[in-house]
């Protein structure tokens, strides 16, 4: 029997000798231990050698490269801008396509495929002068017809594109000449520019889009934009490889390749970054953040995002029909202690319903923590002894469950007895969209909200304006004055007047007749190897590589 035992140390020894990254001290210690076990069986030795040789093949191949490996939590779902609804897809799309205009880091609009743009006296006709000499990855030239084709594609009711609702204010697109295009809105639309800078306004090649139809954007061949990188390979969930587009019309990218390798498990993602197997990661668990920040080989950057975490009320359900009860809940929550204990350094307390990076937001200050005031309001509303309710949350949001538990404990202090219901994403999502108030069993529920166009209109109108069914206003919030202000602001293109209207609307929904309890504004936390420089993280949470380069 004992004859079998030498195989184990033998494998380890040969393996250690052969593999790269050999740690001499460990090796020496182990060698001392295994010194006795000389290989007595030549066959075994050959077997071990071949195993070790096979294993060591992997090492050393990726040392000389000018590429970056990026690990997010999930693979891109689609590379069709008209269908994308997740940031994993969005950030790849920005490497492949251009829109007519886009946001710079300070959230100002800058030209992209349009050289200049202006709005006519009628406030509805927007004229874009287009860049000349631009070609899509498939060779098709970019011109006014391509622009027209794009908006017609996304707006086609038969096309069934996920982002159609975003562009509904557009009435028609007119080709003036090959490089001038007019986009006419149905009414003066205040959020026109944010809409045009949205990722879904990126221009796809009409040729490739026609060729692949509904399959456009779902495989490496079925993608063609005008952007600085192009897709060379896409093996779903394994890797998506982009290569520099050397015919790019703008400044060429510095990296040869960008490789997206999704890692669903957060702990594995952090280890992979620390081990140097990937260069950039997102979605870092709060517990790992201090360790990464101390690691000299890793750079951690934080960018304030457009997204905020809120708890919303079912406003058509007792007792939340009474604004005083909702205000009482808002006063009873100590946001600071929750942030400090659960997510230190990862978020900032909310100072309004929209985060500072959103156009048209008003700074209304942190909502005060005042349990006394909460009890007063409850007594006033006829709930002197509090009431029983339910908080529904989902682990899909970072610390979603823990935060709900903390909130429940704080609400208990003012007499509100809370039961916590934890649902997985698909199960909570079914209550959001198209239900009548009586069919929606939620009471207080967690929700992450951000305006993907970084503008107040998209950040407030869909989710707080009155709807009979909770199509996007998942909590059935309804306030007549708010509705009026939002509609007025939507049709106002003068920024100052518009901001004044939005300020009033935000006061209502944040302070007077709260539609939600705002907890905190998210930071996008990105960890990267110290060798990676000039990464960009936009407030939209998208990591892009236009200027990124590698330097040891």
């Amino acid at each position, binding site marked *: *029997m004992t004859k079998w035992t030498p195989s184990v140390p033998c494998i380890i020894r040969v393996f250690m000798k052969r593999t790269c990254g050999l*740690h001499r001290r460990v090796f020496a210690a182990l060698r001392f231990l295994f010194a006795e076990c000389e290989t007595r069986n030549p066959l075994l030795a050959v077997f071990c050698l071949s195993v070790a040789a096979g294993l060591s093949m992997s090492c050393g191949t990726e040392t000389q490269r000018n590429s970056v490996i990026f690990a997010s939590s999930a693979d891109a779902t689609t590379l069709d801008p008209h269908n994308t*609804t997740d940031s994993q897809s969005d950030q790849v799309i920005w490497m492949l396509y251009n829109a007519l205009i886009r946001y710079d880091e300070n959230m100002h609009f800058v030209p992209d495929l349009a050289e200049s743009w202006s709005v006519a006296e009628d406030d509805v006709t927007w004229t874009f002068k287009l860049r000349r000499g631009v070609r899509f990855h498939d060779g098709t030239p970019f011109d006014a017809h391509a622009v027209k084709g794009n908006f017609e594609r996304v707006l086609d009711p038969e096309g*069934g594109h*996920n982002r159609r609702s975003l562009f509904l204010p557009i009435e028609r697109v007119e080709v003036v000449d090959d490089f001038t295009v007019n986009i006419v809105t149905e009414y003066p639309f205040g959020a026109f520019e944010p809409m045009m800078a949205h990722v879904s306004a990126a221009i796809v090649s009409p040729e490739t889009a026609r060729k692949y139809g509904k399959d456009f954007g779902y495989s490496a061949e079925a993608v063609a934009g005008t952007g600085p990188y192009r897709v060379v390979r896409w*093996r779903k969930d394994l890797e998506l490889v982009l290569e520099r587009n050397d015919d790019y019309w703008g400044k060429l990218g510095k990296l040869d390749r960008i490789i997206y390798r999704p890692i669903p498990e957060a702990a*594995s993602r952090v280890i992979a970054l620390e081990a140097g197997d990937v260069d950039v990661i997102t979605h870092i668990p709060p517990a790992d953040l201090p360790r990464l920040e101390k690691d000299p080989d890793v750079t951690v950057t934080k960018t304030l995002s457009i997204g905020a975490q809120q708890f919303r009320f079912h406003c058509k359900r007792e007792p939340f029909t009474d604004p005083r009860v909702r205000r009482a809940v808002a006063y009873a929550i100590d946001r600071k202690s929750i942030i400090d204990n659960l997510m230190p350094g990862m978020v900032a307390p909310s100072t309004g319903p929209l985060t500072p990076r959103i156009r048209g937001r008003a700074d209304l200050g942190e909502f005060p923590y005042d349990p006394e005031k909460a009890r007063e309001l409850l007594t006033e509303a006829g709930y002197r002894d509090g009431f029983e309710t339910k908080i529904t949350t989902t682990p899909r949001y970072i610390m979603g469950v823990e935060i709900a538990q903390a909130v429940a404990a704080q609400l208990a202090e003012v007499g509100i007895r809370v039961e916590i219901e934890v649902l997985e994403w698909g199960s909570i*999502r079914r209550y*959001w969209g198209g239900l009548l108030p009586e069919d929606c069993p939620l009471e207080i529920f967690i929700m992450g909200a951000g305006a993907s166009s970084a503008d107040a209109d998209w950040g407030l109108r869909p989710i707080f304006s009155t709807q009979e069914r909770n*199509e996007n206003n998942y909590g059935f919030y309804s306030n007549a004055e708010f509705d009026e202000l939002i509609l007025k602001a939507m049709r106002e293109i003068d920024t100052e007047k518009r901001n004044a209207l939005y300020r009033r609307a935000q006061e209502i929904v944040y302070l007077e007749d709260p539609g939600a309890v705002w907890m905190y504004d998210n930071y996008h936390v990105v960890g990267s190897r110290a060798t990676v420089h000039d990464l960009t993280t936009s407030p939209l949470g998208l990591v892009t590589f236009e200027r990124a380069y590698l330097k040891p």
Partner: protein
Amino acid sequence: MLRYVTRRILEMFLALLGTSILVFLMIHLIPGDPALLVAGLEAGPEVVEQIRRELGLDQPLYIQYWSFLTDALRGDLGTSIRMNIPVLEEIVDRLPITLTIAVGGTILATLFGIVTGVLAAVHHNRFQDALVMVGALLAASTPSYWLGLMLMLVFSLSLGWLPSIGIRTPAHYVLPIVTLAGQSGGIISRMTRSAMLDVLGQDYVRAARARGQRERVVIARHALENALIPVISIVGLRFGNLLAGTVLVESVFAIPGVGRLLVDAVLWRDYPMIQGTMLFVAGVFVVVNTATDLLYGVVDPRIRVAGD
């Protein structure tokens, strides 16, 4: 023997049909609506309605099942809702990875289990026995996702010997296979030990020794061969567990296999993809079980005779 084999294969198809009905009912019982998930949080109601219509989700359940079944018989498992690609193609693409890990795990677990189990039985009640049994207990009760992370911390992060995530070279397979094999290895080891102890106490073993057979021959030829029957049945069953275990291991090591496809499909309520992967996994499981049953016949002539 032929009748036995045909009967087993017929049963296999019945099992698959049953699985497809069960899976179909189950996925419609879990709450959630794929159209809402695909459309995203900001989509308007008309978009959601359109997606629902295109996916055929507005049809009654029996019609949905019937069209699934008839398509499946023609070899078309439908199109993934989330990824918009043919389900069958994606599964076939990924199956080799998952099977390599599952089969590799089974082989490693079996080798490890039998070697240590025999070692423990031979050194019954001595130090080696205790060592193996404690080790096997530890291995059997360590959750694989935790084991995977620990192995990654030690071998990728601290020592830098093996790559942490992904699957591109042979070296990438080492940690996932070891992780997957851990639990089953422990169980098989304990199983082998008790089976061996049973056999070693039997008269014919004593008789073999009395005949002056060498100890090695007694153990390897007389004892082990007879102890293998319960071990084979447990290995067959463990293969199913290992196949299921790839779900966890593939998530931890970011491996694009069938297991991860299934997890994502469930999270996204990607009905055709859930249906397809489940059918495939069930198929592999049934085939392996049938093969195990047939293997008994090879090892144990009594079963072969009874089957005829």
